[in-house]
């Protein structure tokens, strides 16, 4: 076990898998010599060289398109998009090719790759460096979508993602890249996709969160505890396929559910989660399911801390839901 932050854990996962599996290659903007703008790929170029760690031009469509081609020819690319906000030029490649090839070819040309990209705000990045576009990809059938909240899960989930037969979008919450620290096993292990983690058990209200906002949910739950409200917190970890059984089991227990996410509220993943809860646990609900989310505006620069669903915004919703 080693104490690591998220950056180090993801780096360790890439290094581990590149040593284990010669098909794994990394490509992206400044991922080579520089080691990535967040230093996630630091040292990989030194160890694995130009053939396996490729610096690319500023062309997201090119990065993903090239990676898809590599995958069709038997490699296992792990391309990086520097910020999720830059992913849109590659959207056609992702939606029309990446998500479809395994289906289109009857499984013969799966175009298996893991697309890594940092997400979220709270880093004074402004509107082009802060977005959380997960629901745009969850809505595209054929992709798996992952978002880790801590170093242990980040390594385990990334290894599971690389070994999964489907293309995976691996979102890395950049606000906690260095803030989230923890023990990470040195050897080989995976955190299975499609399994949420109940990070705190409670009786009164279920909080659903992932990535950086998990910590805001925890902070709000700590405050709620002082008011006698006992929250259960579920870290989804894999957004799709979502571990609905764990979610429903929790909601059945508490009868109350709040979803927290950074993305704008409308058509965010919270809407889908609440729809599923209504479908599967309707008769257990003691209060209307609630969402604490980003607003339906572009991500603001100066009002960043008002936009994010931080603990001070979650707490009153917990109280209102518990006392409904």
């Amino acid at each position, binding site marked *: 076990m080693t104490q690591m932050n998220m950056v180090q854990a993801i780096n360790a996962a890439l290094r581990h898998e590149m040593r284990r599996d010669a098909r794994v290659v990394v490509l992206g903007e400044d991922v080579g010599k520089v080691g990535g703008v967040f230093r996630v790929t630091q040292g990989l170029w030194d160890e694995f060289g130009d053939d396996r760690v490729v610096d690319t031009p500023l062309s997201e469509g090119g990065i993903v398109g090239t990676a898809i081609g590599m995958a069709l020819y038997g490699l296992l690319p792990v391309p990086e998009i520097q910020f999720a906000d830059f992913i849109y030029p590659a959207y056609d490649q992702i939606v029309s090719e990446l998500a479809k090839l395994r289906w289109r070819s009857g499984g013969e040309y799966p175009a298996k790759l893991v697309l890594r990209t940092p997400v979220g705000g709270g880093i004074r990045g402004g509107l082009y460096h802060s977005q959380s576009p997960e629901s745009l990809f969850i809505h595209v059938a054929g992709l798996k979508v992952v978002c880790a909240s801590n170093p242990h899960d980040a390594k385990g989930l990334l290894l599971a993602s690389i070994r999964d037969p489907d293309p995976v979008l691996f979102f890395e919450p950049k606000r906690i890249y260095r803030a989230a620290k923890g023990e990470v096993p040195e050897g080989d292990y995976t955190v299975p996709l499609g399994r949420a983690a109940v990070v705190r058990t409670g009786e009164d209200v279920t909080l659903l969160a992932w990535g950086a906002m998990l910590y805001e949910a925890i902070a709000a739950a700590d405050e709620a505890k002082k008011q006698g409200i006992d929250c259960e917190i579920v870290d989804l970890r894999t957004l799709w396929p979502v571990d609905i059984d764990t979610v429903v089991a929790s909601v059945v227990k508490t*009868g109350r559910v709040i979803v927290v996410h950074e993305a704008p509220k409308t058509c965010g993943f919270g809407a889908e989660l609440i729809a599923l809860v209504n479908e599967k646990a*309707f*008769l*257990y*609900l*003691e*209060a209307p399911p609630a969402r604490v989310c980003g607003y339906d505006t572009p991500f603001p620069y100066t009002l960043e801390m008002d936009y994010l669903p931080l603990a001070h915004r979650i707490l009153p919703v917990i109280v209102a839901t518990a006392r*409904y």
Partner: protein
Amino acid sequence: MARWEFKLPDIGEGVTEGEIVAWLVQPGDVVKEDQPTIEVMTDKATVTITAPKAGTVVETRGKVGEIVAVHSVLLVFELSSPGEAVGPAPSADASHARNGHAPKDDGPAATAVGDIKETLPGMGGADAGVGLDVAVAVGAGAGYFNEKPLATPATRKLAREMSVDLRRVSPSGPQGRVTKTDVEGFSRAPAAPSSRGTAFAGTALARTPRGPLEERVPFTGMRRKISQKMAQSTRTAAHFTFVEECDATALKALRARLQAPAEAAGVRLSFLPFIVKATAAALKKHPMLNTTLDESTNELVFRKYFHIGIAMATEAGLMVPVVKDADRKTVLDIARDIERLSADAKAGKVKLDDLQGSTFTVTSLGARGGLLATPIINFPEVAILGVHRMKQKPVVKDGQIVIGEVMLLSLSFDHRIVDGSIGASFAYEIIRYLETPDLLWMEMA
């Protein structure tokens, strides 16, 4: 042990569904063969259905008031075969089955009715009746009703599980919501009081009333059936009513003469058997009145049999037992039939067979029959005869005012099928028989 599903049998001609009136068994009960299990009300009557096999009731399907179709499952049995009756069977299969049904659960239900009185505000006897109290009393009392109750899904689920009608639960939650506590409290409370008199009696009325201003009584069973049939009749048939006088002098004299011999034969002879006989005779001459319209095929069905329904008021409500083949029976036979049917109806045990197949109905309006009435046709028949009380009245006979025995007849016809002149002819035919009852001797076919 085998599971066995008991389905609502086809209980009689044309019966396609029934309403559950009462369950006589519950899950967990061990029942013997032929033990009564359920009362089902059909179009025709309430029948008690017995268990065709012995076993343990695992499940009862359907609630009281629910309509169940013929051949739908009513009961699930765990069949007991000889030698298996006592002690748990050792096989895993059997023990699983035993776990499947909980122990008989009448304990809690019984205690639940005991401890209530103090818990219901507004129902106490103390007369601190100031205005403010009354609002509370009305809201929380047994008569509370709200068509659209507010409640969370979880509370609705609880109410469903406890068979509590949320509309009747007085809410105590925020924004007028019914809470789980309200539901639990409601289920512990006694059933709504049925005493109509007490709440508004005497001096209480002069002051502010303490009880609920309205009371709701379930509209089920026989009453609902009658309501449906009456509505169907008035909705479908084009009713018109024809009223005429009948001189009953001869009839009265004949009945007086025949009373002694009838009594010797063990029959109390009323006027009704004569009227039924006269009706059957008149129907034979006017077959249109004995028809029914088959709208599915657009055919008028002329019935060659003359089964006369006799409307009877019973405690449960209106019933129409049938005198079969009245045309082929003597007045004495008919009197005997009516006596038997009437006794059965009063005792609430008319056989289904006695309630089916009438082609025409007579309603004897009795001592309080009034001057005239507009009877509703016993659909799908096409006419009905209402008989009013026989009275002594001044009548003009041969230029003299004399005392006559006058009886009024009110006949309703379905004008879709029966024209006015045909209806009138039929009415006068009956009157002819009743005014000259000796003619009935010739009607013994």
